[in-house]
């Protein structure tokens, strides 16, 4: 299963992120590809929106300013395995904008689906609560 991230914050929506997410699901169904589209938040690099990310073994590979009508080309070019393309940025975490930041309260912004408790937990969420529950009064 391939995980594809398409942001759903207002900035991304204003650049057609919903249409992009729909196009990815449609194309995947049509071609019988096992793809899960996750609607994350924006990483904050609004000028790259919609910034579509594909989960690969090496990390999340980003594609900038993706439009819905590019999706079939991107799939043909193998973007679901993170292959290169004109719009490919490489590993998103390695971009200067993110590499030079230390995010604390914003650590999970743009990384997960903000409404997924499982994603939250997988990224260290609920640790404090669990610890508190295990303590004696």
């Amino acid at each position, binding site marked *: 299963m391939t995980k594809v991230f398409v942001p759903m914050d*207002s*900035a991304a*929506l*204003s*650049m057609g992120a919903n249409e992009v997410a729909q196009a990815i699901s449609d194309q995947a169904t049509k071609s019988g590809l096992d793809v899960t589209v996750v609607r994350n938040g924006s990483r904050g690099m*609004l*000028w790259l*929106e919609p910034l579509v990310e594909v989960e690969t073994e090496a990390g999340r590979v980003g594609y900038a300013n993706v439009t819905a009508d590019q999706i079939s080309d991107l799939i043909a070019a193998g973007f679901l395995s993170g292959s290169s393309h004109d719009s490919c940025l490489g590993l998103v975490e390695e971009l200067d904008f993110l590499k030079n930041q230390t995010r604390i309260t914003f650590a999970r912004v743009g990384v997960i689906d903000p409404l997924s408790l499982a994603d939250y937990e997988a990224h260290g969420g609920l640790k404090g609560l669990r610890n508190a529950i295990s303590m004696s009064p």
Partner: protein
Amino acid sequence: MSNFSEESILNYLGPYKGDGSAVLRSLQLVQELLGYVPDSALDIIAKNSNVSRAEVYGVFTFYSDFRSTPPAKAVVKVCVAEACQASGSASLISELHDRGYDIHKGNIKDDIQMEQTFCLGNCALGPAAMVNGAPIGRATCEKIFVAASAVTA
């Protein structure tokens, strides 16, 4: 949209009966329900919230987002604030003007109304616009009309 009764509005405002602090929320609810706030709704809200009509009128006229007449099928808001001016909203606005829309006057043409607004918060992707609540980044005349005709069709 223009079909409403005092009863239907009162039903809608039920949770806020007697709550004088809920005038703003009540106005929002009426606009959500009818698309605008008719003059008679001001009396209904005043009665329901147990405040004077003058107080409701004051809140109603303070926020330019509230309208007293029914909206066009497509309501386009175009940002005229500084960040969007810096990213070229002036030429967009004059293009819209050439197509028969004066966003400063907010005239309606072909079921489309274009209005000015001050900052939609999408400054990084200016010029910013909004069509019936859906945001449009790096707005162009073309993008705006495509989105507007999709809702008027």
